Structure formats: structure tokens, C-alpha cells
């Protein structure tokens, strides 16, 4: 029984904490008479969520944001892993490009949104590009790290087996790097959502980011909270999918094993 409790205690504590936070929020709004224009009560937000979900246009907005996020993320994975493998293996190229990579990494990339809108228009492409740019860096840097962290002993095994470069990449370097790529992807998917939403904030007429700005302009703060709630759920679901993918694809990896044994 105690073991069971220790293993499953989070199923009780986490919902309890959520309920307590919601109650505190409600009590705060009631006690201090906070204007619903500043902070609507949870019950009001709940009603707004129901209203939002009942609106058939909402689903369209969800699809647009989801599409932009996934397309950008997919692009980031392709480019990030591809370039990461090359830079991880070709040291002189990595050293040559490193200053540029660092410069691009420290640049506040959100500031590029207007440029992407100029280049790619108000449609989904500019948002896809923004999502891809944000998600790309953690995936690429993790891939480089993974390739360069390949165990020396493992390398010697492949050398002693006289493996070709291609076979070494396929049988050792890529599988050894996969956990790093997936760690980068976990960060990347969240950044991809941010990229898509920020893109929608600043241009266009579709997607949840646009909806958030539209509700703000209409002073419908409750609806804005509802949109934020939907966005959070979307992000949560996408993150869980990537995390699940990681457990599935690298069942042998220590982090995965440790989590499973908890």
C-alpha cells in the first residue's frame, strides 16, 4: 500500500494543488473585487472556454496553428539533424561556422518576424519559417553534441571491425545521437509553437495567436484567457507526444530507464 502510494501519489497531489490554485484565484478575485477586464475569475474563464470551443471557427484556428507548428518543427528537425551531423563530424567546418552560429543563437529571433512577413507574406509560410528558426537551434546544437559525444570505446569497436564511414554513421553515430536529437526536439517543439504564435500575433488573420490579439482588441479578456488556455493545452499535447516518442525510440537510454523505474 505504501509502495503504491509512493508510486501514484502525484495522481492525488497534482490535481489537489491545481484545485487549490484555482480556489485561491477565485477567492482573490472575489475578495478584492478585481475587475474582469484585468483578471477574470476562473469560473468566467471556464464559461469562456466552453463558448470558445462551441464556436466552429475555433477548430479552424487550432488547425492553422497546429499546421504551422508541425511544419516548422519538421523543417527544423530535418535541417537541424542534417546540419548537426555534418558539423559534428567536420570539425574545421564547425570551428569556421561557430561564431556565426553563436551570433544567430544570441540574436532575439522573434525580432525577425517582420522580416519574414515581408519576405513570405501574411500567410502561414512566414509563421512556419519563424517556428522552424526557433526550433532549429536546440535541435542542431544537440545533434552536434551527440555526434561529438560518441564513446571512444564504441568508436574503436567500429574501427577494429573495419567499418566503412557510412556503416559507422548508420550503425553507431546516428543511434548514439538519437537521444540528444530527441532532447533537442523536446525543447524545439515548444519553441516551434512560440514561433507560430508570435508570427500570428504580428500578421495574418488565422490561428490561435491571431485570435488572442483579436480578443484583446475587442476587450474580451475572458475570451483571451480562454485562447491562452487552448494554446497551453495544444503545447502540452505536442510536448507529451514528443516525450512519448523519445521513450519509444530510445528505450535503452539511461534517462528513459530511470524514469521508467521510478
Amino acid at each position, binding site marked *: 500500500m505504501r509502495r503504491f502510494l509512493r508510486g501514484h501519489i502525484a495522481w492525488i497531489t497534482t490535481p489537489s494543488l491545481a484545485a487549490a490554485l484555482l480556489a485561491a484565484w477565485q477567492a482573490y478575485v472575489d475578495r478584492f473585487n478585481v475587475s474582469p477586464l484585468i483578471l477574470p475569475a476562473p469560473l468566467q474563464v471556464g464559461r469562456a472556454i466552453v463558448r470558445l470551443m462551441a464556436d466552429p471557427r475555433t477548430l479552424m484556428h487550432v488547425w492553422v496553428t497546429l499546421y504551422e507548428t508541425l511544419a516548422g518543427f519538421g523543417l527544423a528537425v530535418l535541417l537541424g539533424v542534417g546540419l548537426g551531423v555534418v558539423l559534428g563530424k567536420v570539425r574545421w567546418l564547425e570551428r569556421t561556422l561557430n561564431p556565426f552560429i553563436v551570433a544567430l543563437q544570441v540574436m532575439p529571433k522573434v525580432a525577425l518576424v517582420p522580416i519574414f512577413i515581408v519576405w513570405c507574406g501574411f500567410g502561414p509560410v512566414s509563421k512556419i519559417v519563424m517556428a522552424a528558426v526557433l526550433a532549429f537551434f536546440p535541435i542542431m546544437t544537440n545533434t552536434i553534441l551527440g555526434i561529438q559525444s560518441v*564513446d571512444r*570505446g*564504441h568508436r*574503436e*569497436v567500429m*574501427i*577494429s*571491425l*573495419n*567499418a566503412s564511414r557510412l*556503416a559507422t554513421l548508420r*550503425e*553507431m553515430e546516428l*543511434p*548514439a545521437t*538519437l537521444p540528444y536529437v530527441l532532447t533537442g526536439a523536446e525543447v524545439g517543439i515548444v519553441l516551434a509553437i512560440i514561433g507560430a504564435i508570435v508570427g500570428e500575433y504580428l500578421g495574418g488573420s488565422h490561428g490561435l495567436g491571431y485570435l488572442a490579439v483579436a480578443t484583446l482588441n475587442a476587450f474580451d479578456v475572458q475570451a483571451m484567457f480562454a485562447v491562452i488556455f487552448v494554446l497551453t493545452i495544444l503545447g502540452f499535447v505536442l510536448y507529451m507526444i514528443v516525450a512519448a516518442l523519445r521513450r519509444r525510440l*530510445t*528505450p*535503452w*537510454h*539511461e534517462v528513459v*530507464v530511470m524514469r521508467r523505474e521510478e
Partner: protein
Amino acid sequence: MPFASAPSAEAGAPPAIGPAPVVPAPNPEIRLGGVAQHYRVESGESIVALTGIDLDVDKREFVVLLGPSGCGKTTMLRIIAGLIKPTSGSVEIDGRPLWIGERRDSEVVSNLGIVFQEANLFPWLTIEDNIALPLKLRGVGKEERRARAHELCQLVDIPGFEKRWPRELSGGMRQRAAIARALSYRPDILLLDEPFGALDAMTRDQMNVELQRIWLGSGATIVLVTHSINEAVFLADRIVLLSPRPGRMDTVIRVPFDRPRDLYVQTTPAFQEMAGSLRRRLDAMA
């Protein structure tokens, strides 16, 4: 009798001291001729890791390289394995040079099986796939790989572990799997670099018995590196004793005990005496 020709030391007699005798063999499996290895350290000066190595290893012979740390025994094994190209001297495997210019002769290399101090199993492959990895690289089909891995798991005595992950096995079992991987493509030569160095003493004794059994069954030639005197005397047909700074061959000693040896051979006076004289020789180097 692989160790019938030209014994350099009688059982129990103190090993001959002085330059290592060159034993001419008609058809050696491994021949090192005048091998030397220099390292350039960061300050720019050149360190001699190994010098004057002449050694012939016969077919099906079990040779142990023994010496204190820094004597270059691992370097010597890595040179035989083709992981290091010696600064000077020649390495021939079954009469063929290992190196063609700056490249290793891949046909010669494919006849070598190597077991490292760490098992170095790939954590993302099951034991079965680890063992069969060399076969996969050689383009062997899936069914045949599985059958061979199964057979090898029996041979190295880890039956039923084919589908497990390496991390689920103990250190000794992982090293068994590493030996199975090295044997998978049936190399004529097995090179082992302190393969049981990371294991506890009891597991180690057991592994030595198993290694002898596997070797007797496989007909392979073995070169094994160790710093354990008992391990060397227990396993070897011949012990090559190396001395440090710079690493060179000190003595070659023939070990005459009958095969298969069991662990109790270690309690016999002849064994004790040989181990004792090696101990004295090693202490004299320090």
C-alpha cells in the same frame, strides 16, 4: 602440442634473464619484426613507448603480454590489432603485412577479433544484435545472424539473454557478450586487452577458465594483455614479460602445464614457483 618447440624455461626454473630469445617458427600466425612506437608529447619531445619488439606467435598459441603499467603492453596489442601503426618495424599476420602504406589491409584485419577492457557493447542494441553486429557489417542476413548469436550465447554461457539490453547484464556477462561479438565472424586471432581487469576476483577466475575452454574449442590464436601474474601463468602457453621505460621485451617464458587447466593448478608448487619468479623479476624492474 602447440608449445612443444623450443621451450625457453623449464617448469619451476627461474626464467632466463636477459634479452628475449627470438624463436624462429616455420609459419607464425603473428610476426612482429623490430617494432618500435614513439609518441610525441605536447612539449614536443618524443617518448619511446616500445622498442625492439621481435615476436612470433604460432598458430593456436596462447600468448600473454605481462608487465607493470607503462611497459607498453597495451600499445603492443593495439599494434597487433592494427589500431596503431608502429613508428617502425613490421607487423605480419599469417605471412601478410598488416599495413599497406597508411592503410590497413582490410582482409588481414577481418581475421582479427578484439576484446577491450570495457565490453563496449552498444547500449541501443540488444545482446543478440551486439554480438551479430560484425556479421551485419559483413552483409550477413538476419536469420543467419540470429542463429549465430544464439549459438554464441550458448558458447560464452549467457543463454537466454539474446533479447536483453546490455545494461541489464552484469559486468562479467557483458564481457562474455563482447567475446562472443569478437568470435562471431570466426577470426583466427583473438586479441584481448585486460578483458577481465574490471571484474571482481572470483568472476575473473571463472572467466579465465571459460576463456581457456572457448579457446580450446575455437582453435584460435590468442594474445592477451594483463598485469596479473596469476592470470598470465594460468592462461598462457608463453608469457612475454615486458619492462617499462622504454617498453621492451624482457623475458619470454614457456608455461608447461597441461590443458585444460583448472583453477587448482594455481595451488601446485610448480605454479607457485613460476609465479614467484615472475614476481621477483617484476619487482626488480620497479
